[in-house]
């Protein structure tokens, strides 16, 4: 044994040093204060959200759904802070995102929708691979929905998704782009010019009124965006321009920078900015979905149609 005493002492000391530095030290040095933006489980009326959390754990939701937003996650709502998790144990940060992130899921869908989604996910989300949880009792399901609805209920969005850096004035490419631009996106004339281009190129899918119900939308698996959503009010010009230019991956939205000139795209942006309403106009009746919009061209003067070819002062 004697020859190995030093080795044994070495192993023990090494391992306890590691435990000290990576287990004990974080416990002592890392004690985040509650941030008051953590989830509040007491306000839900659908069911008992605290009990719902236990069902979330029991059904193993955290194997596919994460509960932390990262810097690089676009459109997942406000970023989390260390203080948000003080009362969360066992932690539900999650391990893989086979399904969407649920950090700020609360309030995104009505409770009835959530329940229907739990019973048969594919009825409300075609193509989803989430298992059906129809075996949950009514009470379990209400509590689970209450928990889901309370996720992120204290986090208020302050910053929204923004265009990539090459479209903003933080990079030389973006500065050059903005310097080339001469279209005033707030002007009615620009919006009218954009309307013409929109009618020719976009209306087939997005609909004449921008409600996402153009004739093509019937055949599309991924429905086109509904521009009447108040959400789009916070879109910057650069964000609109980026979306229009590069399209949306995974959908039929094309990269319009292959088809339209830069000037034309800025006119479209000017028009898109006029479409938002205070409340979303949704096509929620089956008859409306199947009804193809009548094509009606806007009544405009010749100048209004083509202001960019001269004619206007």
């Amino acid at each position: 044994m004697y020859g190995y005493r030093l080795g044994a002492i070495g192993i023990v000391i090494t391992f306890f040093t590691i435990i000290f530095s990576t287990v004990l030290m974080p416990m002592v040095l890392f004690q985040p204060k509650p941030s008051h933006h953590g989830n509040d489980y007491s306000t839900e009326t659908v069911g008992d959200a605290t009990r719902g959390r236990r069902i979330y754990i029991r059904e193993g939701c955290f194997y596919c759904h994460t509960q932390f937003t990262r810097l690089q996650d676009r459109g997942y709502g406000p970023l989390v802070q260390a203080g948000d998790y003080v009362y969360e144990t066992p932690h539900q940060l999650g391990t893989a995102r086979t399904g969407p992130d649920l950090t700020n899921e609360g309030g995104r869908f009505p409770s009835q929708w959530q329940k229907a989604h739990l019973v048969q996910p594919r009825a409300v989300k075609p193509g989803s691979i989430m298992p059906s949880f129809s075996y949950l009792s009514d009470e379990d399901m209400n509590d689970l929905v209450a928990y889901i609805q309370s996720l992120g209920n204290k986090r208020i969005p302050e910053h929204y998704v923004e265009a990539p850096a090459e479209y903003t004035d933080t990079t030389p490419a973006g500065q050059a782009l903005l310097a080339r631009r001469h279209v005033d996106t707030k002007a009615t004339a620009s919006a009218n010019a954009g309307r013409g281009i929109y009618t020719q190129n976009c209306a087939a899918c997005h609909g004449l009124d921008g409600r996402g119900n153009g004739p093509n939308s019937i055949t599309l698996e991924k429905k086109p965006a509904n521009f009447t959503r108040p959400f789009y009010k916070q879109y910057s010009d650069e964000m609109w321009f980026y979306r229009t230019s590069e399209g949306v991956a995974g959908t039929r939205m094309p990269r319009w920078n292959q088809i339209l000139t830069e000037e034309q795209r800025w006119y479209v942006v000017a028009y898109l900015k006029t479409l938002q309403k205070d409340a979303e106009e949704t096509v929620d009746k089956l008859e409306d979905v199947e009804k193809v919009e009548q094509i009606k061209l806007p009544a405009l003067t010749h100048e209004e149609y083509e202001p960019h070819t001269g004619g206007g002062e």
Partner: protein
Amino acid sequence: MRGWLKLSNSLVDKFLSNREGSASRNFFLSALWWSLWGMSAGLLAGLEFSMPDLVHNVPQLAMPHLRMFHVNAVAIGWLSMGYVGSMFHMVPTLCKTKLWSERLGNFTMWAWNVMMVGAFCTLLNGNTEGREYAELGALLDVIVMIGLVTVAWNIYMTIVTRRVKKLYVSLWYFLGSLFWFPLVYIIGQRTFVSLPGLNDAIIGWFYGHNILGMWFTTVGVGMMYFLLPRLTGAPLYSHGLSMLGFWGIALFYAPTGTHHILQSPVPEWLKAIAVISSIFLLVPVFTVLTNFFMTMKGKWGMVVTDMPLRFAVTSSMFYLVTCVQGPFQATRWVNWYLHFTQWVVGHAHLALLGTFSFILTSAFYYSMPRLTGRQWHSQGLIRAHYWLKFLGFLLMMTSLTIAGLVQSAGWHHGVPVDQWVIELVPYWFLRSISGIMIVTGQFIFAYNTYKTLYTPIVVVAPAAKPKEVKV
């Protein structure tokens, strides 16, 4: 009175046998048994990715419950029990002595099996602690601890009573693992404590990564050090290198856990420790593999005929891939892109299925004839097992890795989940096929083992030569 005593003695002898090698053999067979359940659960869970409505209204067969059971059955059941079986065979062999107590070994085996039955009954019903890799309930945790402590005691006492002065490097690894892992397990369970969320996560990943680092890797590498020289008949290339590899793992593996939550709001210094030690892990990995490959020099051709060696060499190749992939994806910017995707699932299977399951299979095929004195029923079935598992695993790895890249591209471009999920359908389908191949291979393995151990040995008289037959 005497009759009762006799009966109880015979029962003790039957269930807590004192026969040499019985504890090792029983551990191997239990491991095989739980692997069938664990891998089948994984297969069914995989099928439910391709066909989400395959099983309806049966909570025990819902994907998350199957996943919990799959992970615990293959990690705590198949791999850990098999590891204990291997150590119970290899340690006495290396010490040129007997296992300190076969009875204690068999007792541990029963305790472990009872724990696995408990895991089967609780996890499939969702009775979980809600912590990944630490799902087992408090009572089952206690039984695991009893099992680990008795195994450690048994092995330590065997080594104390050894007849060889010098400790071979495998014994270093086994002794280290049996010191590290019980501590890691106790720290990682968090059964009786309730920590704030992120501290819970830090300790959770300390445990989640070290169940791999201080148990599966260290015991598995020790087994490779034992098997490669034994199977090839070549001496180990360098004892000095093997010591360097051992100390490298001892120093750099344990602090890496936080690289699982690199983008969460945990302290930066902890992330820095995790990333740096993850990269440093390349040092022990390359030393260990240099040692293996130099030992194999001139002997590579033996993998054609020697099936246990082929499993062991495949395992060391996968070890190379795993351990290059690991530090690569633990760096911040790669992790930024790949985290949370199926790529990681592929990586986990590369380590546990590709590397450590293969080395355990090699040990199983090597040890079982030596423990029972029976030759394998069929070499052809071993080959079938190898090819099904090998090709099945390659298919699984490829499909999961591509699926992971599709997912991360989806997030990177801000595409909503319900849009890219449709793109993954073919990869789920390929993964299901790979699962069917792997599970079939494992059932062939089990059938071969059954035929080997439970067919009476028929002594066939040598056939008479035609000339001698008088007509």
